């Protein structure tokens, strides 16, 4: 069998048996893949140093089944240095993918978007933009595009969003329920300059993602709320 080398990022790892490690990769060509690897005991083995999240890798996987064996791993470039909230955001991206992506489904655009997001996080750009962009791409890859068309024709101020149904006008007289139509229009037109629009976008994304996760909480979110 011919060796097939591809770019990958480690999303998550955990110890397995005495001297092995169970890995989850996001690969450029095979989507999310699980693999096991032996950790050498010798001092010269630097596998553990290589197998860290946010580090661009070149990997060769072996095996027929769902669980692959990591045959070879090399650094592709220097790993991205994330710190503080940027690091927590990186964990958030990883957790989203570990929880939501199916195995062995090639998501064409996702790898590039992930790499770009990590790079932007390491450059300490605006976290909100990076996360929303990534979430948007992730949802698209999962086959979930948000249809903004119902909000344009009518002159209604607030909308509810229901998964599987889309946007529905708010009928009740209460002012505070649902999403602001002006904000939604701005999101649809990708005009994300205002802070309020970003806040609405965040709440909307959170609602959709929580629905996908069946209401189970994302642990990386806890890291943000404690210190900020």
């Amino acid at each position, binding site marked *: 069998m011919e060796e097939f080398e591809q770019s990958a990022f480690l*999303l*998550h790892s*955990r110890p397995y*048996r*005495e001297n092995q490690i169970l890995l989850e990769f996001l690969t450029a060509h095979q989507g999310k893949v699980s693999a096991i690897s032996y950790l050498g005991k010798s*001092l*010269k083995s*630097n596998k553990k*140093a*290589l197998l*860290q*999240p*946010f*580090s661009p890798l070149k990997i060769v996987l072996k095996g027929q089944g769902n669980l692959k064996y990591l045959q070879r791993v090399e*650094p592709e470039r*220097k*790993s991205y240095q994330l*710190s*503080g909230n940027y*690091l*927590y955001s990186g*964990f*958030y991206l*990883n*957790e989203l993918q*570990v929880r939501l992506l199916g195995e062995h489904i090639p998501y064409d655009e996702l790898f590039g978007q992930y790499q770009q997001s990590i790079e932007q996080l390491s450059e300490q750009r605006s976290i909100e933009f990076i996360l929303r962009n990534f979430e948007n791409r992730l949802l698209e890859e999962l086959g979930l595009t948000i249809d903004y068309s119902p909000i344009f024709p009518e002159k209604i101020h607030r909308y509810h969003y229901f998964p599987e149904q889309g946007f529905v006008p708010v009928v009740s007289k209460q002012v505070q329920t649902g999403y602001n139509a002006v904000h939604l229009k701005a999101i649809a037109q990708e005009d994300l300059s205002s802070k309020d629009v970003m806040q609405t976008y965040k709440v909307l994304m959170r609602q959709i993602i929580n629905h996908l996760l069946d209401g189970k909480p*994302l*642990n*990386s979110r*806890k*890291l943000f709320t*404690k*210190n900020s």
Partner: protein
Amino acid sequence: MKFSPLVQELINSLKCLPGVGAKSAQRMAFHLLERNRIGGAKLAGTLKVAMENIGHCSQCRNFTEDDSCEICQSAKRLINQQLCIVESPGDVIAIEQTGEFQGRYFILMGHLSPLDGIGPDDLGLDILEKQLATNQFKEIILATNPTVEGEATAHFIAELAKKYQVVISRIAHGVPVGGELEYVDGNTLSHALSGRKSYSF
């Protein structure tokens, strides 16, 4: 062939040890029954007492059967106003063996790992914060492992400690003693370079 119920139960119980599967458990059970009954009885006794009595130190969270462990009780270490924060009891032993550190410890029993569901609440950070609030420490040393999760943990604790009057330091990481630069991975090497010290004579 089937073992008698008690033998089978012994084998099944031994499988709770890390790295022990069905075959190893069977071998252990036979060895204890056939060759080392006294050792087996002693193990059973110790195991029972240990499981019932060992808890966590109220100050550093290390394993101890008393309310606070030997290190936390020591008066000499109380004077030294340093606190070293580590991930596991094994790390304490490793640092103790160097003899370099005379202060006290705080053991997290893990590191922040959102994907495994380990959040700030599971690391006893509320206990840590209470200790920091008493202002008994001049310096805290963050000695979590040099992994991405360890860094995240260190950063999280640093943020927590920022509002108290303490010096916050992080252990250095770089090339191991006896190592060869040629075989050291790029990440370690770049850490070693960026954290270089001016030469002291």
